[in-house]
């Protein structure tokens, strides 16, 4: 379970994250939906301990990453924005390397690695160096090494970005499986279909602020739009300090 309260981060004059509040519950998939530059990656970076918030609070299973970054890292599995691999290592070695850094060894490590490789349909390429991997194969490798320690909370920054259909399906499959196993999954995306297909809760972020949240039905109801895409456009175009309902009414009025 991840809860974020009034999270803030600025870079010079730019307020990248400006008072973000949301909760990602156990056994649920939460989508952080927003246009490019909305503050999704910065929010996630603060969650996964590599950036220090300027204000607000984060709790990962009750652990504050600012106070106890090591503790938070044990509870987190992360597919970061940049998840580069080591070209001379094989897929299996990537998974084992991160597993060992988490303190997993021996037979336990081997069985976890084999399990992940099977689950991600990677057994055929497991012992090949990743230098020749396709984008999808790379993402799957990065995903596997991120969750080798079976973390309670999984953060994925645009996991399906640039993937082909088959790889996208594999990633979605993993996300569903993690959900069914009771994990907290929080992923960011700017792709509507993705979010609506997978998420229990959608958090819409624009210009560093949360402009709407709830199920896709909730969001449609809030904005008075028939489909989620229109709802998203409406929400992210809103001035954050105005109430969503008031502005959606204005938009309606303008259209008619």
């Amino acid at each position, binding site marked *: 379970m991840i809860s974020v309260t009034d999270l803030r981060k600025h870079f010079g004059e730019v307020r990248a994250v400006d008072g973000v509040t949301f909760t990602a519950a156990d056994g649920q998939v939460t989508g952080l939906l927003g246009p490019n530059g909305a503050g999704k990656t910065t929010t996630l*970076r603060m969650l996964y301990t590599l*950036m220090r918030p300027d204000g607000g609070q984060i709790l990962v299973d009750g652990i504050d990453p600012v106070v106890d970054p090591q503790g938070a890292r044990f509870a987190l599995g992360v*597919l970061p924005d*940049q*998840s580069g691999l*080591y070209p*001379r290592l094989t897929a299996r070695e990537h998974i084992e390397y991160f597993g060992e*850094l988490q*303190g997993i060894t021996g037979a336990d490590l081997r069985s976890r690695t084999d399990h992940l490789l099977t689950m991600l349909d990677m057994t055929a390429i497991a012992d090949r160096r990743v230098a020749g991997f396709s984008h999808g194969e790379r993402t799957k490798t990065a995903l596997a090494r991120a969750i080798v320690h079976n973390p309670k909370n999984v953060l994925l920054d645009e996991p399906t970005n640039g993937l082909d259909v088959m790889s996208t399906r594999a990633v979605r499959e993993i996300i569903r499986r993690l959900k069914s196993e009771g994990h907290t999954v929080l992923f960011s995306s700017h792709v509507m279909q993705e979010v609506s297909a997978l998420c229990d809760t959608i958090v819409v972020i624009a210009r560093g602020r949360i402009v709407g949240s709830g199920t896709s039905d909730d969001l449609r109801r809030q904005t008075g739009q028939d489909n989620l895409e229109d709802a998203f456009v409406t929400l992210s175009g809103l001035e954050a300090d105005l109430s969503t309902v008031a502005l959606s009414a204005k938009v309606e009025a303008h259209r008619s």
Partner: protein
Amino acid sequence: MRSSPVTQALVVFRKELMDWSRDRRSIMTVLASSLLAPVIIGVMFTQLASRQRQVEDVTIPVVGAANAPAMIDWLKQQSGVEVVDGPADPQEAVRTRREDVVVIIPEDFTKNFKASKPAQIRLVNDSSSQNARPKVQRIRGLLQRYSSEIGSLRLIARGVSPIVASPMQIEDVEVSSAQQRAAQILGFIPLFVMIAAFTGAMSIATDSTAGERERGSIEALLVNPAPREAIAGGKWLAGTATAMLGVLVTGSLLFALFKYIPLQDLGIRFRLGPEQLIRTLITVLPLCPLIVAIQMYVATFAKSFKEAQSYLSFLMMAQMIPGMMATMNSMPSKAWMYYVPWIGQQTLLTDVLGNKPINPLVFVVVGVVNVTLAVTMLRATSGLLHRERIIFGR
């Protein structure tokens, strides 16, 4: 399930070495830089030795040998001297450099010699030929010796002491002797060994800091619950291992080389025996962790391999300065110099190779100083890995 930072550092260490061992280019770099010293020193010495031998073993082409049989016999008795028939056209042969020098004995030699008149002898040589000069000098010296021996005998026959005919004695003091040149070449050994350490460390130091950023793998790595010190420490250990490998390879090759180089021929009292080898390693190995720590610190600021490499080549030049200075003008070694990294290694190695007695405590202190500085640098690097600008700045 949580493991200690030391275990985590060892995990990183093992991964970095595995990664490194699969990079053919970085292995070639270590081998090439380790070969540099033995090859250069080997070639220089062999040349020096062969030039020296050329001078001692001399073949004298003589035209008209029959005109002075006694002198030819005397020449043949000298060690390393061989007399052969000279070419038909001596001037032409020397001008075209087919011969370095030709001795011509004119027909009237014996007539003048018997009459105790100065008997002429011609030494055809080209003074513009550098290579021929030692040989010409050697032959001229031989002939002059023969001449003065005969002169002495004549004086004795007339009841006069030959010493009377030598009011002065000129002694050559050769400064650029072969020995001196050999010593100069040996002076480069410390420099070469330190270059080997530096290049040996380079690929891991750049790959594991600037490389992590360029590949975009640093975020994923730092999200692991391993403290920055463990991650930087593991990389540091791996870099130290490859730097030491470079030093060991260079050291062993030099050791092997000096078994074959005929240093005695050059009149050099230099030995690179097992004892000197071990002392050389004790001197240079503690520098390796420091070199790696500095390289990592610098490379952490770089955003790419290329940027890191250009910073590091600059560092490499900087580290060569003390060695160069010491080689060019031999500074008297002062006590403080032993404890300054690089200068200390240079000074110590000069002592080691010069077979000077060294207090073992000096080795210990030098080692401690270097490793302490290395750990300090490593902490600074770990500190850098906490900075958002370093992790995300690209």
